[in-house]
């Protein structure tokens, strides 16, 4: 049950089956380079394709991919769940490539592959624009190339790249996104420019997985304190696959310390928690709270806004079993907002098209 209005799944993943699938979308130079250099593909190790976390067993595709093709994904995330629209995020190694021009070529190829193999196959799908964030000028060029297509509704970045995202080298990306009405989606994951924790490299998967919230917190703090939302007041940022329960305590800290050190960055002229609640959105799944309705209720209360949570299945990642995507403890009214009103007010291009 999704409630009233157009419902949107804000995080569905498409896996590039192999490098061959992308070849038609490169120009002659890059097609030859991929062959000559023996490039086999750039899967990020955030989600190693064969890791159990990367794909729920019942969502593994017949072609060996996690989640299968557009038709299979549509069946699971739309038909079976009664959801109307889904946003496809392709996590590929574009952001990790050290050659900016190669990264741009791969970003273009992936976006064209998405348009062809996912969006053209299934009219209920939308997609995020994959960009080479390591070179903001090239990232902007890719945004400009794709922004006119109403099916591309977001710009996709990773939680950890070269620098904190508030730094003004990234502002051209935010300027283009704001101008085209595209939210910035910051997806859990790293380009591995920096260690996954500020203490160095973790040794175990569980460390890397749990520590991701620190990267996301750092990006929220960076975007707020560098004044990105003062400069781009219409910009929205969606934290995708970020978890949620860490947010209230983090906002409390950020707002509390603002009292004492706001003179460093006087353009933060209101409590950071207020800025975050206005400009940030977070997706569910995964929802990182115990399976207790009363605890979930408290977390939602502490988040402090009914406008910031967005429905997501995170298909095909294995965060939950069965059919219940949302946890118990979410009111009927909030459920409707999470499925429909919140995504539609975040992704305005979806409403304009349908």
């Amino acid at each position, binding site marked *: 049950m999704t409630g009233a209005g157009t419902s949107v799944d804000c995080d569905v993943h498409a896996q590039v089956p192999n490098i061959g699938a992308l070849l038609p979308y490169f120009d002659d130079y890059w097609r030859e380079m991929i062959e000559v250099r023996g490039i086999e593909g750039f899967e990020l190790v955030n989600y190693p394709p064969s890791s159990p976390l990367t794909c729920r067993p019942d969502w593994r595709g017949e072609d060996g991919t996690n989640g299968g093709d557009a038709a299979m994904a549509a069946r699971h995330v739309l038909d079976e769940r009664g959801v109307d629209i889904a946003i496809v995020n392709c996590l590929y190694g574009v952001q990790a490539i050290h050659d900016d021009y190669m990264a741009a070529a791969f970003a273009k190829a992936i976006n064209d592959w998405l348009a062809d193999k996912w969006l053209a196959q299934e009219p209920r799908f939308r997609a995020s624009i994959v960009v080479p964030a390591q070179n903001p000028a090239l990232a902007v060029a890719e945004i400009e190339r794709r922004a006119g297509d109403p099916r591309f509704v977001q710009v996709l970045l990773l939680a950890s790249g070269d620098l904190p995202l508030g730094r003004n080298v990234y502002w051209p990306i935010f300027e283009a996104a704001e101008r085209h009405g595209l939210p910035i989606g910051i997806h859990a994951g790293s380009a591995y420019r920096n260690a996954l924790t500020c203490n160095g490299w973790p040794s175990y998967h569980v460390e890397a997985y749990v520590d991701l919230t620190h990267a996301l917190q750092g990006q929220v703090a960076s975007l707020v304190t*560098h*004044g990105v939302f*003062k*400069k781009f007041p219409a910009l929205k940022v969606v934290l995708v696959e970020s978890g949620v329960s860490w947010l209230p305590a983090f906002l409390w800290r950020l707002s509390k310390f*603002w*009292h*004492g*050190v*706001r*003179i460093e*960055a*006087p*353009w933060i*002229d209101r*409590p950071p928690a207020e800025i975050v609640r206005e400009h940030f959105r977070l997706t569910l799944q995964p929802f990182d709270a115990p399976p207790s309705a009363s605890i979930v209720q408290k977390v939602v209360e502490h988040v402090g806004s009914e406008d910031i949570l967005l429905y997501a299945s995170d298909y095909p990642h294995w965060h939950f079993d069965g059919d219940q995507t949302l946890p118990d403890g979410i009111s009927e009214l909030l459920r409707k907002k999470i499925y429909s009103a919140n995504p539609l007010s975040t992704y305005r291009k979806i409403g304009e098209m349908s």
Partner: protein
Amino acid sequence: MARYVVASVDDIGIGERKLVDVRGRPVVVFNINGEFFALLDRCPHQGGSLCAGKMTGLVEAGAVGEFKYSRHGEIVRCPWHGWEFDVRTGKSYCNPERLRVRQFPVTLEAGAQVVEGPFVAETFQVTVEDKYVVIEA
């Protein structure tokens, strides 16, 4: 409400402040270019002594990267956590309506008047020739 004579005007030079005792309560008296203001010497956050805090100006920004500095010496920062309070109003910068330091009305009175009363001036000698800082509390 009683009126307390807490200092001679000459005791607190321009830009200076003085901690006084009003009925057992610590009060800090500021002299901003000849205007006097009195605040309870207790930060509403956790009780830090504002008398021990740095005097600063108002820092604002119209845009990112801009540092607009005005009202030099009219803002006090609590020495414990750096929270800023407007000496003229007692209001905090970050939450002016809900977080403020208690302020006391201050008047300057001639010694001749102070001698006549009704004032409480127990702690020091009042002379007719001088001017005095009087706090209503």
